[in-house]
């Protein structure tokens, strides 16, 4: 394939988190309000976890 989208690690991880959180929110909760809340919760856990893991790896690498 000629097209090659170049995403940074951060933007790829945020995109991944966004779409995964939407699916988790819809599939793991029963009513729309809970879906939105759970989706937002999953997204924040993904992003915060990624940042924590990233900084941990930076310090462990030294």
């Amino acid at each position, binding site marked *: *394939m000629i*097209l*090659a*989208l*170049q*995403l940074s*690690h951060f933007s*790829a991880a945020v*995109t*991944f988190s966004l*779409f*995964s959180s*939407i*699916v*988790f929110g*819809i*599939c793991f909760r*029963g*009513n729309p309000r809970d879906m939105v809340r759970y989706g937002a919760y999953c997204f924040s856990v993904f992003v915060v976890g990624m940042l924590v893991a990233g900084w941990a790896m930076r310090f462990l690498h030294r």
Partner: protein
Amino acid sequence: MANTDTTTTETPARPTTPPLTVMAALAIAFGWLIPGAGHLAQKKWIRGLLLMVSVCSMFALGLAMNGKVYKPNTGDLLDMLGFVGDVGAGGLYILSRLMEWGDVAIAAATSDYGTKFIVVAGLLNVISVVDAYHIAIGKKP
């Protein structure tokens, strides 16, 4: 003297298996072939569209990042697991194999991200198919 003891031992209620209705079967088939279609077939328009956009976008972004689409029977265990994930995307997987998209070697980090996007898109579609089935049998509103 007649035995007047009328106590009976009640057998515990056995869990009943949910009936496989036509809609449940269609929700599984449609949902696998076209991401989100299992929900759309049951008139869950917003959920269906969001699932369709999410799964299709992840799959397309994975291909755009030069991600690899796994083939069956390569002999490598990790490739087989990747194939199981990929095939969950159903119609998207079939289309990509027909068009020979994703027939690349993973050479760069971006390509590796793309490969993971494609696998996870398939796995997320499996989750959405199960959700569509639960809606069809009345287990979920």
